[in-house]
């Protein structure tokens, strides 16, 4: 999923303060838990409460979209909802925000969240971790299902740097050494020979910005 975190409410208030009638658009898409109707409704309540303290009366309209990044779905769901709306506060990732901005070129669209990475959450600790850099050249099949591009602080492709201590990264002692994880996993799989393969440096110029599948 795309991992997003709500912006500080002060920042959101500041961004919406020039407007009165604001549409808060949740997104039922990939973030977990989805920033859907509940998140949109609760955010509207909080902003109303904060607005009143500052003598500002917002009129919020609250809804949630199936996938804000889908321009067709979003356009068809939103078009009938925009009467009198002066700005949209989006609870989607950066893609959703830009999708709405493209559909309504004359309307200010404000992100309510910061988008961080493609990651996962552990069930107990509520910790979110980066797992995929969307590099466009997946090598997980050769690295035991663990991504060194994302999880090695140096993004190394050909094994550990030698700086790890007790399985932890020298850049950040909280962080596991991705290459040690890969080694252990390949050992379990009986595929340590994969480590003998040489991987050429990535060609970062080839990173796609547009695709026509």
């Amino acid at each position, binding site marked *: 999923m795309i991992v997003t975190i709500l912006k500080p*409410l002060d920042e959101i208030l500041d961004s919406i303060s020039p407007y009165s009638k604001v549409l808060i658009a949740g997104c039922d898409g990939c973030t977990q*838990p989805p*920033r*859907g*109707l*509940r998140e949109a409704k609760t955010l509207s309540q*909080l902003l109303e409460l*904060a607005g009143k303290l500052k003598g500002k009366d917002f009129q919020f309209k609250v809804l*949630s979209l*199936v996938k804000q990044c889908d321009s067709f779905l979003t356009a068809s769901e939103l078009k009938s909802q925009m009467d009198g709306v002066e700005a949209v506060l989006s609870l989607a990732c950066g893609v959703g925000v830009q999708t709405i901005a493209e559909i309504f070129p004359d309307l200010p669209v404000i992100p309510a969240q910061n988008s961080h990475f493609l990651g996962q959450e552990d069930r107990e600790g509520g910790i979110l971790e980066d797992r995929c850099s969307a590099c466009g050249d997946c090598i997980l099949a050769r690295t035991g299902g663990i991504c060194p591009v994302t999880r090695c602080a140096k993004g190394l492709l050909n094994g550990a740097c030698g700086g790890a201590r007790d399985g932890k990264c020298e850049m950040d002692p909280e962080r596991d050494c991705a290459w040690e994880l890969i080694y252990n996993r390949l050992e379990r799989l009986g595929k340590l020979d994969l480590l003998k393969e040489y991987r050429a440096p990535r060609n970062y110029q080839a990173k796609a910005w547009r695709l026509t599948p």
Partner: protein
Amino acid sequence: MSQQVAEPQVAVNIKEEQCSRCSICRSLCPFEAITKDAETSKIILDIEKCQVCGICYSACPAKAIDTIYYDCGSLLNYLKKAKPKYDSDTLVIMCKGSAPDFSGVEQLFGVSNFIPLSVPCVGRISEELILQAIAMGINKICILACDEDYCRFERGSPLTGRRVLALNRLLEQLGYGREAITLKRNSLKVKVDRDLCISCGSCAFYCPYGAPKLESVGGISFDLDACRGCGLCVALCPAFALDLDNWEKDRILALIPRLLAEIEPPKILVFRCQWAVFPPLDGESSPNVRTIELPCAGRVDAFHIVEAFQKGAEGVLIAACPEEDCRQEGVSAKAQHWVKAFRERLKQIGFGDRLHFCTVSRRDPEGLDKELRQFGQRIEAIGSQKEKK
């Protein structure tokens, strides 16, 4: 500080001098809190293990056990006052863990006017109370227990079943007809609005019982036998697609302004787990505090908290069970976790100190009052700070 040392109130106590050491309490206690001393053969209650269900109290033939909650005397006092008030000779005793609202009770038992008596577990209702009620002129007694596998105190519901059977036999012999006491069972569980469900799986992620099943085709379904009605999934459903029998979000929502209108500033609204503290029978009398009982702290809803502030609450207090007392597989701790996170959001708009999460134990009858006093002072301090500005 007062120099006077008041005797601490204990929720349940065995009076040694009255105890006949028959061990009935020991055999009935669902929590192994009662033991027999091997040397002295004294019956000993370990209050730390006790869950205050009241089963031992209701079963003791020697009346050697005291409970400060809902003892027979105070229940009878309540009945004396309630009988003329409700102008009825029908008594409905229900476990609050599974009692629907008034109209639900009416439907369930086919009664229209009745004296309600809501208790935490019907297992604490003794034969004596029932017979005294009949002697007081109650003609019809209905008892609503939890489904046996839903009983929070494990043995309360099955024990009540056996008691009703025996009492009915006795009452028949005394000429009160067959089935003088009607016993029904119920449980309150989750319900899904499929039109609103977005199949995100959050409920499956949070449920401690594995009741929700999410399939890529067909979406979410609930194994209702597994659901224990804590409401955590309802409180955290991102799409407002879930609700809980009798604890519907709209019902709670409607209560908020009504209760806040009854009280004077500084207005404090309490969301309390129904098992954390057992409230007095005659309701709330504080001029500043009103309480919304919830099935579990898991049902506390961020949406309701902010609504309370919007409707004029100056403070919101959440009272949950301590983790070791939680009757819902650690849901209390899960609730505490998200409330803490939500409080950070409230802090950003200056409401952080107006929300307080505390754990109180039914073993400590004064625990909630203490929390409320401290919280009340905090709210007043915030109020006077604001006035100075």
